[in-house]
């Protein structure tokens, strides 16, 4: 009888083993499946007199072959790999965009400057001027298109973040449910292998989206994000939400909703695709947009300023080539009021005072009282100082100045200042009439006929206007430009020869003396002269000050030789149709002039160098990203290999097991046959 039981137990054990092996073979392709093994144990032996006889076998456990350490390694490497893959996926198209000569900025810049040189060679040629305008248009269009690509990338990132947060929430909910089921079954003494495998697989999928810390606690798996914010704790799930950033609505931020409160975790999310996108946005995309914007601002500001310093084909001072960088709309766009600000706090108008001093950082303004505020430079929060809204003129911080309009602030209000971010999208070519290109310098000198002596004006000694018109103060600039028209020509008359020095007097058109000075005859002398400006009726044009002072236009010129007595030089305004090209030469000089980042120790870099820096920066990040991606792929492959090596199903092994357990089954069935024969022998002998 007991032999029958022994046989039965062997049979059922072998049958379970066969079923487990069959389960392994069927699940060879299931993701996250750990192969299962049966563990047999002996039943308790019975005592017969002095000897113990065993009573068969029992199935102790169906256990899954699993190493939690290898599993944890797989999860961390998964999130690392997804991070670098997502980063690489974003940075590679940006790198291509900037490097390609047909889509990048460098080609348009070079072509523009080549057109300027063409106009300089033939300033009177309308065709060359028109070509210059077209190339300016192409340049601003190129700025716009690169900028719109960058903005599109930002929009894509925003969209992706939303999708991924959704996925994370779904997966977290699944984990919580599995936690509950598993703890129910475990508490009643079972070991739900499939549920455990499913939970591991869900957690691994979650790791592709975000880096997470997994903690096993009493059979539950708790998931923590960032620096320890709980996403899943036992059965409870907190929701990961994507909302427009409080400081910067264009950039979506992630926040964890704990039911009673929400906390913003954007800055501490690392790992996974979400981490990779966030890392890309803050280290590559935002600086690239700011750098591109800075180059656009310098281009517009410098070229417009040079235009205002020269005379166009109609004989007027030049007008803006590109739209003004300090228009009302642009000034308001550069400041973003935080969503938490008090009602009626208004916004800042950010006006750019010195494009050379601009950096590529964003800034944060915090109000400490209704009128006092501190400015910090992001991302390292360097303090730029404390200021007051009542100070006039407004203080200039890193090339820009702030003016609060439209309301009054309260203590605690914060604003984010992005001086350069939108400039590349906003730059437009404003000039349409190629005659208004100012190529000629405003002042020209001519030696009056009838003089004696050896006075000459070298070609580089022609007068250059040193007074810089402020193109953002249109009223003063127009008044001064008209004043210059009314106050020229002036005459410089030299006094008697024969001493070590020679005196000269500057006279206005009517012969009234304006100023005087001395030169050393026989050498090169540089004269710095000031013309007091008068309007059409002869009244002086004043700077209200205080104190009230007449406005002047100063110019430098160089003379050589020894002027004879009463030799005179006439300095007059350039005529319409002048073929002079000195202002155009200044415009062409922008290609190599150091105009960007002039506040740094190197005294600045040129426009092309600034763009080159941007391209190189993105390129090196892309190269680094490629290396990172290759490295993390290798690490992930290793971790996966290690896990699969332990927990993966090998069909050959399972085949061997099938044969083995079949034999065991056959052997156990032989025991039953033997038991049956014993019984029938016993029955037949009676």
């Amino acid at each position: 009888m007991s032999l029958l039981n022994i046989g039965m137990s062997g049979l059922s054990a072998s049958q379970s083993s066969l079923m487990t092996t069959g389960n392994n073979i069927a699940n060879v392709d299931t993701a996250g499946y750990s192969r299962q093994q049966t563990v047999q144990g002996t039943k308790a032996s019975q005592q017969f007199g002095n000897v113990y006889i065993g009573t068969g076998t029992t199935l102790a456990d169906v256990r899954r072959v699993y190493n939690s350490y290898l599993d944890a390694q797989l999860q961390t490497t998964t999130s690392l790999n997804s991070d670098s893959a997502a980063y690489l996926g974003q940075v590679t198209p940006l790198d291509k965009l900037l490097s390609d000569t047909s889509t990048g900025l460098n080609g348009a810049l070079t072509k523009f400057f080549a057109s300027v040189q063409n106009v300089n060679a033939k300033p009177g040629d309308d065709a060359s001027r028109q070509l210059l305008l077209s190339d300016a248009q192409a340049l601003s269009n190129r700025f716009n298109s690169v900028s719109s690509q960058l903005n599109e990338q930002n929009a894509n990132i925003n969209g992706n973040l939303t999708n991924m947060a959704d996925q994370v929430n779904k997966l977290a909910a699944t984990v919580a449910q599995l936690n509950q089921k598993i703890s129910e079954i475990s508490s009643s003494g079972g070991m739900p292998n499939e549920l455990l495998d499913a939970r591991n697989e869900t957690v691994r999928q979650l790791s592709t989206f975000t880096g997470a810390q997994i903690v096993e606690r009493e059979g539950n798996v708790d998931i923590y994000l960032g620096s320890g914010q709980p996403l899943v704790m036992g059965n409870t799930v907190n929701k990961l939400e994507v909302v427009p950033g409080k400081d910067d609505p264009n950039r979506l931020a992630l926040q964890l909703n704990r039911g009673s409160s929400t906390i913003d975790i954007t800055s501490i999310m690392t790992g996974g695709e979400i981490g990779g996108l966030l890392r890309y946005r803050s280290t590559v995309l935002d600086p690239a947009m700011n750098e591109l914007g800075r180059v656009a601002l310098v281009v517009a500001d410098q070229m417009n300023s040079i235009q205002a310093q020269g005379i166009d084909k109609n004989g007027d001072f030049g007008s803006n080539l590109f739209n003004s960088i300090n228009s009302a709309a642009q000034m308001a766009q550069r400041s973003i009021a935080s969503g938490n600000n008090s009602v009626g706090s208004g916004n800042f108008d950010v006006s750019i005072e010195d494009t050379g001093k601009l950096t590529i950082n964003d800034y944060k303004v915090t109000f400490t009282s209704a009128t006092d505020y501190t400015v910090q430079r992001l991302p390292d929060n360097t303090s730029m100082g404390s200021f007051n809204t009542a100070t006039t003129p407004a203080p200039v911080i890193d090339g820009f100045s702030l003016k609060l309009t439209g309301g009054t602030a309260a203590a605690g209000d914060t604003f984010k200042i992005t001086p350069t971010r939108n400039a590349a999208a906003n730059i437009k070519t404003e000039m349409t009439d190629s005659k208004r290109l100012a190529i000629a310098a405003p002042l020209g000198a001519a030696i009056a006929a009838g003089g004696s002596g050896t006075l000459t004006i070298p070609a580089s000694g022609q007068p250059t206007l040193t007074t810089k018109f402020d193109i953002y103060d249109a009223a003063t600039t127009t008044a001064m430009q008209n004043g210059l028209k009314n106050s020229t020509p002036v005459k410089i008359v030299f006094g008697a020869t024969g001493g070590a020095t020679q005196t000269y007097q500057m006279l206005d058109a009517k012969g009234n003396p304006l100023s005087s000075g001395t030169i050393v005859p026989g050498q090169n002398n540089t004269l710095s002269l000031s013309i007091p400006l008068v309007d059409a009726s002869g009244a002086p044009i004043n700077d209200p000050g205080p104190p009230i002072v007449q406005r002047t236009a100063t110019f430098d010129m160089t003379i050589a030789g020894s002027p004879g007595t009463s030799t005179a030089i006439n300095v007059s305004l350039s005529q319409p149709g002048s073929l002079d090209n000195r202002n155009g030469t200044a415009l062409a000089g922008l290609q190599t002039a150091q105009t960007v980042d002039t506040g740094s120790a190197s005294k600045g870099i040129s426009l092309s160098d600034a763009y080159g820096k941007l391209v190189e920066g993105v390129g090196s990040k892309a190269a680094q990203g490629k290396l990172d991606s290759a490295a993390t792929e290798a690490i992930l492959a290793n971790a996966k290999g290690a896990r699969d090596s332990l927990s993966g199903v090998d069909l050959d092994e399972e085949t061997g097991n099938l044969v083995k357990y079949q034999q065991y089954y056959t052997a156990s069935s032989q025991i039953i046959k033997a038991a049956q024969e014993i019984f029938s022998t016993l029955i037949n002998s009676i």
Partner: protein
Amino acid sequence: MRISTAQFYESSAANYQKNFANVVKSSEEASSLVRVNTAADDPVGASRLLQLGQQASMLDQFSNNMTTIKGTLGQTEAVMTSINNVLQRAKELALGAGNAGYTDADRQANASELGQIEEQLLSLMNTKDENGKYIFSGSKGDIAPFSRNTDGSYTYNGDQVTLDLPIGDTQSMATNSTGWDVFQQAINTSRTQTAMTSPAVDDGRVVLSNGQVGSDVTYNAKFRSGEPYTVNFVSDTQLQITDSLGNDVTAEASQNGVFSSTSGAATQTVNFRGVDLKLNINLQAGDVPSTVITGHSFTLAAKPDSFNASRSPGNPSAALVTGTAVTNSADYHASFPGGGAILKFTSATNYDLYASPLTANSTPVSSGTMAGSTATASGVSFTLAGTPAAGDQFSVAVNTHQTQNVLDTVSQLKTALSTPTNNNPIAIQKLNAAIGSGVGNLSSGIDQLASGLSSVGGRGASLVTQTDINQSLALANTQTQGAIRDSDPAEVMTRLTLQQTMLQASQLAFSKIAQLGLFNKV
């Protein structure tokens, strides 16, 4: 180590993909032979390529500019050479006309040829380039540089600005030569004049020419400080020269002012402070030299600025300006517009003086009211014949006589040669003086033109050197760019072959191992 079935297939697939991607990338590189496609391929190299690209474009622009300059220099040189040939012909005519054997008719023929030369010169000096801009005007490309005034003199309307183009990183070169440098600065050798002060009526006995400046240095150093001078003939052999302060400076005259009255009408030269004066004594029958010669006196001074005031055709009245003179030297030097002025009447007596050109925005330099028939503005008085009306305009051109344009020289020569002498010795002496002045000024003009030509030649030579330099720089630039950007074909092909082999090997390995399996054997 245990390999699970899934692991085997996954790793085979991953390796195959990697090899395949490598093969594709290498074959792309083999077909384009460009190693640096984006900045990620070589960030530092990409940045250097951008800089090199900028340098290449600037070198390109320099070479374009040099082509432009070569073109303008070529045209300028051709025009200047033509003008030089014409001036040489004019000089021949002038020298020939001094031949004693020429009759009035011969000189008339020379004069008419000089007239043609004058027209030719004017047209050559007003040459336009292929864009229709005048080449000698400086920056005033739309304004003809030389124009003729009503009295036959010429005015320069251009300016003194050179148009520079960059031909190297730190070097610019002028594309044009201004009319000021090439023509206007020719020194006027006849910038002194003499005027007989006693006797009141010229008796023809003593003819003193206006003088020619033989030595510029001496003239500038000594003559100008003492003018105006008075030349007195104190006897028939001695003349006395006193300066403006009354000092006797005869010692500085050649031969101490001694001349001869007995050698007929032969011309004698008195050289004083750099000026050569031609003296002719024409004694008539019955003259006693000591009585006739003594008492003549002349003033000798630099020619004062002269004005040419012409009436505009559209004037309401028929008033004309008959005389001009500088009455207030300080005012004149301070405010009179040197480039030309417009005298405009606002009523029959009130007038304003503007600088030309007169535009809608011009403001008057000075204004005034007529005193009698004289209008004085900025130190110059204009005598008018007739009554002016409101709206009358007179354009005033200034000639300072320090320098003289060859056009004026040729014009004056032509006038002199057209004047018949009728064998009058005095007329002949005046004619000779005029021819001497004309020849001297033609030489001066030819010298000035020669220096203009050498400037053009110098620039051309400098261009040749700069072209070579720029070409070497461009070549080095291209080579450096190639070294950074291009890939080595041999290396790429080797790599491609290796990767193809690896791909084939992994394909083979996969197919072989996939066939193995215990399932098939059981």
